[in-house]
């Protein structure tokens, strides 16, 4: 039954403080994320669809913006304690309104850092950025003046960028009739873009490309796919998304005998790729480099025959570059005969035990040169980690928790839920869970290629992604461990993920960011 049709009153009964229950029930529902935005009312037992609606509903009795101004609440820090204070002490609106402004209002106590309601959306409401959603009032912070200046500056930058584009198109008529080798897309910047700049900048440096190139399992699989399927590549138009140093593009041209290769990359490494192509005497008319995001650039062709890309991140989906591949597929791939390489993936899970890894990462903090630092343990446990797990430390069978077919998938595939059953192979303890992914170059290929990032396969630069349990759990050989894994997009991080694992009658949450 679709919960969207439920009225608020009906929701009151079924909603618990555990939002994740509802999340699971709404598996079929496209608006899964909305369920996570549902927020318990601050001054009543009502449940509101989101925080903005909640504050709007209370507005006639409780004006949030005025309250924040009156009590000099400018920072998210103070706001968080205010919300937790209201959640735990449950003051009435009257009581709050009567509070005189003072240097140490009741919510300054540090205990109000503790979240009262798990995943309380009210805490994630950003009082610097989201307040203007409540109305036309905007908060004045000590940076208020700077904000205006910034806005003006950004506006000016946009105007200038538009002028540059106009000039470019006007003067192109007077230049030689050659397609430009480098096309940079000009786009106005928003918050996401700035975060993304940091992301792309990590690929500017040669070190990370060396790490990927030296991963022979990865690179040789791609090269083998090209070299063994020349008939598939010959005379085709190929699009290399995220070309890096350009190695795949050059291979498509040289070994695959492609008619044309278009290589796109947002990082600065593309300029080195151009120099490298020159050094290797690549035919410039057949190999075109374009600097920019695949979503923004203009290609010299309308459709391509083959899309090739190494887009996989830790846990397969970290970095969410899959979205860019889906975009390219929808926008540029020949619908009838187009190929995407690689095309078929699976994410797999098993449980492991390692005293060494557990001590090094989790237990370490209980005694650091004689001092207790357990507060840091919490953060270690809240993150997914990337490291090699030796095959002998795997203590259960594998279970596939996600299949992905790049021909048919959508952006929604980045969020998913999957049950798992792991059979215990060895009695003893479990330190946590380990995930890896498998990659297949299969559809319409003559010679199929496959590689795996499993602990039992030769190691790759992806290593494995592991999730530690807060304590060791005992298991018996032959026992089945059953549970559910939920992969969710990070609400604030464009390229991050949140992994929930429900197992052993508990719910564990991990960030990959």
């Amino acid at each position, binding site marked *: 039954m679709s919960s969207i049709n439920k009225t608020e009153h009906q929701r009151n009964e079924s909603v618990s403080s555990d939002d994740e229950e509802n999340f699971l029930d709404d598996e079929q529902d496209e608006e899964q994320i909305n369920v996570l935005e549902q927020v318990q009312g601050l001054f009543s037992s009502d449940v509101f669809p989101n925080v903005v609606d909640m504050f709007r509903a209370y507005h006639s009795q409780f004006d949030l913006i005025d309250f924040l101004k009156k009590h000099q609440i400018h920072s*998210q820090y103070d706001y968080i304690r205010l919300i937790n204070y209201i959640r735990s002490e449950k003051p009435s609106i009257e009581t709050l309104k009567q509070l005189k402004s003072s240097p140490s209002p009741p919510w300054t106590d540090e205990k109000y850092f503790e979240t009262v309601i798990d995943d309380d959306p009210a805490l994630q409401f950003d009082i610097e950025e989201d307040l203007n959603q409540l109305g036309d009032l905007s908060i004045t912070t000590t940076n208020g003046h700077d904000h205006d200046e910034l806005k003006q500056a950004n506006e000016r930058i946009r105007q200038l960028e538009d002028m540059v584009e106009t000039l470019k198109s006007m003067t192109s008529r007077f230049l030689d009739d050659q397609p430009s080798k480098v096309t940079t897309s000009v786009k106005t910047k928003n918050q996401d873009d700035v975060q993304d700049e*940091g992301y792309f900048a990590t690929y500017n440096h040669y070190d990370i490309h060396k790490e990927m190139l030296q991963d022979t399992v990865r690179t040789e699989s791609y090269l083998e796919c090209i070299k063994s399927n020349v008939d598939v590549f010959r005379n085709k138009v190929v699009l290399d998304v995220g070309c890096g140093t350009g190695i795949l593009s050059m291979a498509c041209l040289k070994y695959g005998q492609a008619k044309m290769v278009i290589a796109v990359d947002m990082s600065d490494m593309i300029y080195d790729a151009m120099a490298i192509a020159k*050094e290797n005497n690549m035919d410039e008319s057949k190999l075109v480099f374009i600097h920019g995001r695949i979503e923004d650039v203009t290609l010299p062709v309308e459709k391509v025959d083959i899309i090739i890309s190494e887009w996989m991140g830790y846990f397969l989906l970290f970095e969410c570059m899959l979205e860019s591949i889906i975009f390219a597929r929808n926008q540029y791939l020949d619908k009838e005969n187009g190929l995407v390489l690689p095309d078929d993936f699976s994410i797999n899970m098993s449980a492991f035990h390692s005293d060494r890894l557990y001590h090094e990462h989790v237990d370490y903090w209980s005694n650091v040169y004689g001092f*207790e630092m357990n507060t840091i343990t919490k953060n270690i446990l809240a993150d997914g980690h990337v490291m*090699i797990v030796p095959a002998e430390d795997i203590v259960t069978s594998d279970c596939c928790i996600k299949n992905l077919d790049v021909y048919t998938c959508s952006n929604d595939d980045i969020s998913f839920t999957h049950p798992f059953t792991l059979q215990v192979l060895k009695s003893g303890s479990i330190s946590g869970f380990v995930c890896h992914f498998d990659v297949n170059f299969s559809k319409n290929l003559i010679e199929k290629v496959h590689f795996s990032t499993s602990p039992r396969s030769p190691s790759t630069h992806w290593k494995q992604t592991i999730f530690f349990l807060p304590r060791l759990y005992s298991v018996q050989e032959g026992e089945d461990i059953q549970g559910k894994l939920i992969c969710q997009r990070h609400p604030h991080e464009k390229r991050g993920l949140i992994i929930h694992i429900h197992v052993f009658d508990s719910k564990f949450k991990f960030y990959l960011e």
Partner: protein
Amino acid sequence: MNRPSDHVVQVKKIASFEPREQSMNIQNNHPVTNGSNELDYMSPENMTSKEYYLDSNAHFAVHEESLKDEIRTKTFRNAIINNRHLFKDKVVLDIGCGVGIFSLFAAKAGAKMVIAVEKSNVIEYAKRIIRANRYDKVIHIIKGRIEDIQLPEGIDKVDIIIAEWMGYCLFYDSIIQSVIYARDKFLNLHHHEKLLIEIHVYFVRLQQEHMFKPDGLIFPDRATMYMVGIEDRDYKEDKVEWWSTVYGYNMSCLKNYVMREPLVDNVDKRQICTDHFPLKTFDLKTMTVNDINIVTKFRLRALRNDYIHAFVTYFLVEFTACPQRTVINTAPGAGYTHWKHTVFYFPDYITIQQDEQLEGDFSCKVNLENTKKLDFAIDFQFNGKLSNLQSQNRYFMKG
């Protein structure tokens, strides 16, 4: 040569979106990184990679590496805990306290009060840790830049400054300027000595450093940067020459980048084929911000017949306040530290015979506004029996 640890690579990819190239655009679109209201009051758990990008010290993983560097942490611990007579009833200032480990040592050693200052959000962890270990009455935590903060009520001066200020190659991302600032503003000095230090700054550079030592102590207070020559054919092939053929493709244009950037990595002691030349010694008690650079001639003498493919610098810091000699020595062979060593490759190589000497000029310029920008120049001339080489090389670290 050992490879950089896996752990560091992991941190780079997942936890820290710290770009190698700083883009001016990004700084214009965001409030200033340090002291920004947004970041100031954000608990570390609520920070996303956007915030870590601006405040990379907040993520505890950065501190984990330093903490787990036993030579570094244990030497500080020994310098403090083994010298209770220096700490008893004193007021201590811990600059850049991170998770607060040195403050904890100082409190344990009997300090009357410890003021722990840290500008990044990691201080939220320090607060909890200090409370959990029941030192919150002794250790006072202040968030902010040392240049901006005020000492707690009733405290004018401090008796001891503790700061682990050393970065890669001593100065990369170092907080030495903050230590000098704190020394001049907060460290217990007799008035006339302070005046003399000011004169020292503005007029003649006087030789007798010992005349102007302040009363207060600095942990550590002396640092020397050394240089050696190493044989490194295999690793240089791997690092530099590797780009000549990559799966059959020539990527030589990237070799320049590799050689122009000093490499921070572990050097095996057995690769060293020359004596160790001390480039410069820094005395934290008397130096000024203008002294944060090195411009000097150097001379290296070969200890055996060998080849030289690169120069390596490392540093040694001393806690001269301790009666027993207490040092952190980061030389190859002295034990692993997270600072490792800094390798400067140059094109070609030298064939050198025992006792032959190589002379040159070494300079290291630190951008005081942004201590992640360092410029190096190593020019040298060698005329030996078996080879001659004249070489001028420029290097940079740029964060």
